[in-house]
């Protein structure tokens, strides 16, 4: 997998003019205002400051994407911020409401468990066979309810495919941040067969969820229980479950990303990521490799945080179906051979236009979803420091 190529200085496309970049950023600025100052948001001073900071943050990042023509590094700043600030706001609210990060059994029986998108693939078969939702949450509540979350996920996924994992997931940012810390990878050789891991976890968890009639991934394997919430440990089994969460988090989200500079939890474990890969097939946006321009130097393969490029796929001029559309490979290519592409159009046909269309859709979602999370985290921090 890994290659020991001396990385050359990357040539960047010419920067766009400031006026043109501002004009392209204007819709995102207006969208941010609409999302973060909408009716129903808190109106106290600290909340207003948090909303203002978030609006500026999201707008400036998009402006820099427009100005520099680079996507990945600006997106990464946003994504890492979401990953870091999500636990801040979420844990604060959970502790405020319950006094603990643990979900008492009574809360689960009462259907008050906040729903996240992870168990969505595990709900389908039990719902189809028995007309029962196996997640102990509320269906229609606007506060982490199942129906709003599934509806939002479906709409965004149909447009962006696995772009969800780079612009909406509020877990992946932590490992992307950790992976960015070391200057170089300590572990470079990764067996490509580990790429099948997410599919195996998906298959096992879907089948076990159907057999046990509970979201097995949430009960046993979710690394992010360590930084969100978990089943209250009342006996040895509960302790084992929580021990698994902490170990998986320490290994897949902290240690391995640090050693490999890859998003190892997303690449080797996340069942939701595997599920999202299916939707890459119907999403209009994709990354293509212009075989006429490609050398191939494999810089794109090295840059991919998700092992979604192989020599074979590069030779075919495409990414693997696990591509998260983060833009790292596009930015890394010194010959501009890796390009954004809209299905149904000719390869390398106006790639910047395809990039813009994708980024408008992705960043609108990022503001709505991640922006709200950043706002919540900033508001929580302001609450503590002021």
């Amino acid at each position: 997998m890994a290659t020991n190529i001396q990385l050359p200085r990357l040539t960047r496309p010419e920067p766009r003019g400031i006026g043109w970049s501002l004009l392209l950023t204007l819709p995102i600025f207006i969208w941010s205002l609409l999302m973060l100052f909408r009716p129903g948001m808190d109106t106290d001073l600290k909340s207003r400051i948090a909303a203002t900071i978030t609006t500026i943050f999201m707008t400036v990042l998009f402006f820099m994407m427009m100005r520099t023509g680079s996507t990945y590094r600006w997106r990464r700043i946003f994504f890492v911020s979401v990953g870091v600030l999500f636990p801040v706001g979420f844990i604060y609210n959970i502790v405020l409401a319950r006094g603990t990060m643990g979900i008492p059994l009574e809360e689960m029986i009462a259907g008050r468990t906040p729903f996240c998108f992870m168990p969505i693939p595990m709900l389908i078969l039990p719902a189809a066979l028995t007309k029962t939702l196996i997640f102990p949450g509320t269906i229609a509540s606007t506060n982490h309810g199942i129906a709003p979350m599934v509806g939002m996920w479906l709409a965004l996924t149909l447009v962006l495919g696995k772009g969800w994992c780079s612009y909406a997931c509020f877990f992946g940012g932590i490992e992307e941040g950790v992976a960015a810390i070391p200057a170089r990878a300590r572990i470079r050789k990764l067996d490509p067969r580990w790429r099948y891991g997410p599919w195996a976890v998906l298959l096992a968890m879907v089948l076990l969820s159907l057999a046990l009639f509970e979201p097995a991934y949430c009960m046993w394997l979710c690394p992010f229980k360590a930084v969100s919430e978990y089943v209250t440990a009342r006996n040895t089994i509960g302790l084992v479950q929580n021990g698994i969460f902490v170990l998986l988090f320490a290994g897949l989200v902290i240690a391995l990303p640090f050693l490999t500079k890859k998003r190892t939890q997303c690449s080797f474990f996340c069942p939701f990521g595997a599920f999202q890969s299916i939707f890459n097939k119907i999403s209009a946006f994709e990354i293509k490799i212009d075989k006429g321009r490609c050398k191939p130097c494999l810089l794109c393969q090295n840059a991919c945080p998700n092992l979604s490029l192989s020599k074979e796929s590069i030779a075919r001029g495409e990414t693997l179906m696990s591509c998260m559309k983060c833009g790292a490979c596009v930015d890394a290519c010194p010959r501009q051979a890796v390009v954004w592409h809209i299905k149904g159009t000719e390869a390398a046909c106006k790639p910047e236009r395809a990039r813009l269309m994708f980024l408008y859709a992705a960043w609108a979602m990022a503001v709505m979803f991640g922006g709200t999370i950043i706002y919540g985290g900033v508001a929580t921090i302001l609450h503590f420091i002021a």
Partner: protein
Amino acid sequence: MAVSVHFGEALALGLASGPACIAACGPVVVPSLLTERAGLRPHARYLSVFLGARLAGYLLFAAVAWEIGALVSLPPGPRVLLMGAVNVLLAGVLIWYAWSARSLCGSSCVGSQLVNIGEKKNRRAAGPAALGLLTGLSLCPPFVAAGVRAAELGSVAQALLFFFFFFIGTSVWFMPFISFGCIARNEAVITVARMAMALIALYYISLGIAMLIGRKAYGY
């Protein structure tokens, strides 16, 4: 007349309980089927052996439970021990299965004694038979429901026949699994199936050990 009504009831109970049987056996059947050779015939053969062994497990348990008078309600102690042992054994077979499939490559490779993939002369029925027998003994909810009804019948022979017709009803739901034979086999499918089997085995073994040493599950 009354006897045929009983057996019709068993058949209907089996048909109605089919989705629950699929759910209970799915973690065992699906990944192990995915390590089979592609093609409808190998899958039909696998399912025949698996279901036959599952029937044997049903009948064996029913006969023993009838003899000791425990068909309606097996006491909690022995029930937990039985299920714990079955879970540990299932985990062992799954791990063996996953390990045995390591050298598979597409349509025809040499498997171990337990796995029936590979050259025709090497094909074995032990794998699906072991899995079928163990799932037959695993006391899933539909099986317990059938046991309660069968216990009301007049003789052990009638109870066994009741279980047989119940089994026929549930088995109808397994037939769509034959279509898995249409899925092309390659390194990706085999590897995913093997990894999934290992994960499922880990779950079974932890649950089985917890049952055997008397720990309660899930914090209840």
